[in-house]
């Protein structure tokens, strides 16, 4: 094979298999019908394994994605032939559709457009409101993201059988409710988009949440959320909300490299070394942020993106426009009030009006049941009390925070704070 790449192992772009697996499953699901997602997944896995069996000897083909598509497509045709022979009805027409489609992957932009469209439909199908919320996230990661059940379980600190069962149920639901692979219209589309943005938001938050143990797969989760968000925002059904969400994700992801220092210790936003921020992601954030301003509707994503933009836009942490952030949090409390938003708002109050005012704003939150196990409430209270010089009360707060579940770096951070109170 002359056109194979033989000596360079790095020719495969990062996550090529994962991303292409998602595309191929989406592409084949369109041709085979949503009731055959399993078949689509099987033949795609078969194609990837064929690559593993062949490429070490023959070299990586000039167009790896095209190779994978061709093999997956042929495997699908084979599988259909077997099922037809076994007496299964309604699969032969799928073979016709596959044969009709030119396998001209990589021979122009046309097929890439089609693939993006397939991915988009797949995301919107996985985010059908009839499916349970946690199943939507898992299914999106599995079918569009190309994550394995094990990887999803690891990312969600869950176990494999739980996730596997969730996926089986979701697929059954798709079959039983005959959820179509078509782009929904009108109100249905709006609902589906809202759900998709929520799924992407959850995906990102899960990945962004303090890195514990499986840091890498969580980082991949953030990457996938960003990829899907951009796919959605740039598509024909992209909305200002989608741009706002992508901006928010990009700004926050940009800060990831600065969030932990070389010793693995947590660094608070205001103490972060801004030169470590990923400038490409910051630029991407501003790019999408400028596009989210179109339209009259101001969503919670808009406000959160605006807050992140204020942080990202400040030259130094001492130059953060705290009054602007506070008014944005006021706005967020109107649009999407929650105890966590109130807690974050209190941090802004502390910067604008001082720690006393912030502590007063936090007082009602102590009664909130949903924050009973949330370590950040006493952690913030502790820092405010420390600023006021009340070391004893601050120490109590840090001890309280340490009793609640949190990640290892956070635990060490709180212990350091507790020691400064002594």
């Amino acid at each position: 094979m002359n056109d194979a790449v033989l000596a360079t192992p790095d020719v495969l772009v990062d996550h090529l298999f994962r991303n292409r697996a998602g595309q191929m499953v989406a592409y084949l699901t369109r041709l085979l019908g949503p009731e055959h997602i399993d078949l689509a997944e099987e033949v795609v896995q078969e194609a990837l394994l064929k690559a593993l069996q062949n490429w070490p000897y023959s070299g990586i083909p000039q167009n790896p994605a095209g190779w994978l598509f061709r093999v997956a497509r042929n495997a699908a045709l084979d599988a259909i032939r077997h099922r037809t022979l076994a007496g299964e009805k309604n699969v032969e027409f799928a073979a016709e559709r596959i044969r009709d489609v030119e396998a001209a992957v990589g021979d122009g932009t046309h097929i890439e457009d089609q693939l993006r469209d397939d991915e988009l439909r797949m995301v919107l199908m996985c985010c059908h409101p009839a499916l349970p919320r946690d199943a939507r996230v898992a299914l999106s990661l599995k079918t569009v993201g190309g994550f394995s059940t094990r990887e999803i379980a690891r990312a969600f600190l869950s176990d494999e059988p739980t996730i596997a069962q969730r996926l089986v149920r979701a697929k059954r639901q798709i079959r039983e409710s005959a959820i179509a692979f078509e782009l929904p219209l009108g109100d249905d589309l709006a609902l589906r988009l809202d759900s998709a943005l929520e799924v992407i938001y959850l995906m990102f938050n899960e990945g962004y949440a303090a890195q514990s143990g499986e840091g890498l797969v969580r980082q991949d989760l953030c990457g996938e959320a960003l990829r899907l968000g951009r796919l959605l925002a740039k598509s024909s059904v992209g909305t200002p909300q989608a741009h706002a969400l992508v901006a928010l994700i990009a700004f926050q992801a940009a800060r990831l490299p600065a969030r932990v220092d070389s010793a693995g210790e947590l660094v608070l936003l205001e103490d972060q070394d801004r030169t470590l921020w990923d400038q490409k992601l910051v630029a991407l954030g501003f790019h999408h942020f400028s596009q989210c301003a179109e339209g009259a509707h101001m969503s919670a994503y808009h406000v959160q993106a605006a807050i992140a933009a204020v942080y990202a836009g400040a030259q130094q942490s001492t130059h953060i426009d705290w009054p602007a952030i506070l008014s944005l949090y006021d706005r967020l409390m109107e649009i999407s009030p929650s105890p966590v938003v109130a807690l974050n708002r209190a941090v802004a109050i502390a910067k604008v009006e001082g720690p006393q005012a912030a502590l007063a704003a936090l007082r009602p939150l102590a009664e909130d049941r949903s924050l009973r196990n949330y370590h950040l409430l006493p952690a913030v209270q502790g820092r405010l009390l420390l600023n006021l010089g009340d070391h004893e009360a601050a120490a109590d707060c840090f001890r309280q925070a340490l009793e609640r579940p949190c990640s290892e770096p956070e635990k060490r951070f709180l212990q350091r704070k507790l020691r400064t109170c002594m």
Partner: protein
Amino acid sequence: MPSYMLLLYNDPANWQNMSPEDIQKAIQKFMAWGGKLRTSGIHLASHKLADDAGKVIRGRSQVRVTDGPYSETKEVLGGYYLIKAANYNEAVERSRDCPALEYGGSVEVRQVDPMSEAN
């Protein structure tokens, strides 16, 4: 310099649960390993064998063709590399970091008889 045949065996069951990401990483390891053989100029040939069991042909007066050989282990012969090496030691050293081992497979090293290469 003599030639050696590296026969790569694997157990396909070990691959069933690999994620797309895992598969890509495995391929990259194999490419790095094979790449080293190629860049050091000792690589002569390499081929993957077809997934079927192959055929065995026996019989003196009446030739019989059967499927097989089926090995007694679950391992299958996936493919081979033909390389140049000074001696068995070197050929074995070259195989020691073959990713097939990491994925539960094995490598069989056989020297091509120099007498057969003489002509």
